[in-house]
């Protein structure tokens, strides 16, 4: 028994050590150095400052990129939710020939390297004569977010008892009413969680965006170009820290919604 307990201790120690060093260390360093009074990010510590946070407001390009990312992500999320929930319905709630095919059809973009999707869409938009802009970014993001939403919502729908909806239909609901009054409230937590993930993904998407954005900017594109100039680094640091905190808030919110929906077993990612 004693040996079991010691081995458990070492497993716990190992787990927390790996998480601290490999997963959290860079994030802690990032936030710490956003308060460092120097453009060179190394020890020794040069003193506490908030000036990098003040400088964020002096960068119109940065603010514009954040604003662009925000509304692009909102449109992408709205469209992806509609198309993704439809796809999830077709994947989980109907039995028909070609269901496996459709499931594969919808899921493949989800496992495709983003780089490949990015270049394929670049080729497509150019050949189709569509000017690269934030509009093409939106179209590209939806191609990835629809499978994301579909896979997440379908996994919730698989657990859903179809008899509930059949009962609603027997009691005189139209198909739309049955969906709105019975199915939707049950899958709503999965839809909200999927929506938050889709939003997050679109807001952070760099690889696909990099290829289809043309001359406009979104936040990740701003970070990418700012990384080339050392004097920008502390500002990237400061704005990243703010975003880290906001995103963690969003995740906690998503998790809270999920738990309220009673999803103890499935995580928001799987």
């Amino acid at each position, binding site marked *: 028994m004693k040996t079991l307990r010691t081995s*458990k201790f070492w*497993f716990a120690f*190992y*787990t927390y050590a790996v*998480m601290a060093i*490999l*997963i*959290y260390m*860079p*994030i802690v*360093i*990032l936030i710490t150095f956003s308060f460092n009074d120097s453009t*060179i*990010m*190394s*020890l020794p510590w040069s003193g506490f400052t908030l000036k990098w946070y003040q400088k964020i407001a002096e960068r119109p390009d940065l603010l514009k990129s954040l604003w662009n990312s925000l509304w692009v992500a909102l449109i992408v999320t709205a469209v992806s939710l509609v198309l*993704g929930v*439809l*796809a999830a319905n*077709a994947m989980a709630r109907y039995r*028909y020939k070609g269901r496996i095919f459709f499931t*594969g059809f*919808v*899921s*493949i*973009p989800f496992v*495709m*390297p*983003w*780089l*490949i*999707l990015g*270049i*394929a*869409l*670049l*080729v*497509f938009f150019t050949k189709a004569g569509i000017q690269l802009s934030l509009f093409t970014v939106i179209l590209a993001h*939806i*191609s990835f977010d*629809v499978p994301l939403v579909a*896979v997440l919502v379908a*996994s919730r729908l698989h657990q859903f008892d179809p008899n509930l909806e059949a009962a609603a239909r027997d009691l005189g609901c139209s198909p739309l009413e049955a969906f709105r009054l019975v199915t939707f409230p049950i899958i709503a937590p999965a839809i909200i969680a999927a929506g938050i993930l889709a939003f997050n993904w679109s*807001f*952070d998407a*760099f*690889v696909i965006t990099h*290829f289809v954005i043309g001359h406009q900017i979104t*936040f990740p594109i701003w*970070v990418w170009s700012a*990384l080339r100039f050392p004097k920008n*680094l502390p500002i990237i640091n400061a704005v*990243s820290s703010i*975003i880290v905190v906001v*995103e*963690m808030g969003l*995740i906690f919110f998503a998790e809270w919604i999920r738990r309220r929906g009673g999803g*103890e077993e499935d*995580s*928001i990612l799987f």
Partner: protein
Amino acid sequence: MTLDGVRQAGIFFAKRESANSMTASSLSHTHRRHRWRLTFQRYLGLTLNVFPPFIYLLLLFYAPMGMMFVISFWKSGYMTLEPAFTLENYKTFFTTPIYLKTLYNTFLIATGSMILLVVIGYPIAYYLARIRPKYTYLILFLLIIPVEINFLIRIFAWKIALGNNGVINSFLMQLGVIDEPLGFLLYSKTAVMIVLIHEWLPYVIIPIFLSLRGIPDSVIEAARDLGSSKYDIFRHVLLPLSVPGLFASMVLVYIPMLGEFAVPALVGGPSGYMLGNVIESQFLSAGNWGLGSAVGFILLFITLILVAVVIKVAGVEELL
């Protein structure tokens, strides 16, 4: 008979009856119309659900993919692209030493990272599967949070940590462990692998954890009762039973790692150059789209083979 048994029997008879009534010609006109309406509504519902996402993905995923495939066979040079069937692009890729070296590098980095990920992640997954669920979900949650933080920002954070004047080097030098900075920490294959491991660790842990959690305690107890040592239990019980999760996690991380380009571009330096960087530069600076598409398709081909193997082994249903 248990209550459940009664219900089962009820369902069975109801089904048989409905099967009979379907074929019965004595079905009244209104009944038949009602049934027809239900079938029609079902098909209408299915169609409305299938077509919008189907058409969207067909137009904005499958058509671009097809186009990329076609263009990879076109005659292509700097900023030029002519429709003509040629294998020139593939030939260029497979006969240029620097590209082959990059292909080798890509596999080395992706495979090395994957092996390290599994070695590092398996004990954590094992630990998560054996503690109380309350703590399991807390730790899983802590693992997932950083995944949601912008990925460029996290690469940038590693740059601060790993550089010659970076936090790790300055810290070790102040402690007196080393006299001069460890140069291999940044702009090297090591740096790319460290960042990739950071990025994908949660994705490796979760599927392995799920398959380990599915193993009933009774199986492990039986092995122990029959005199197996801890190592034997791991080697002959846990490991074989966790193979599906292990396999899923390996493919889940291997595919995106093969197509990586931001990580090597930011922390890889010349020695950490990967296929993704070749593709990116062909499209965005060298202007040779045909070659870029060909390299992209080679990558895609490898990816599709991997996906096909997984579907063959695990089945589409299990992946979802």
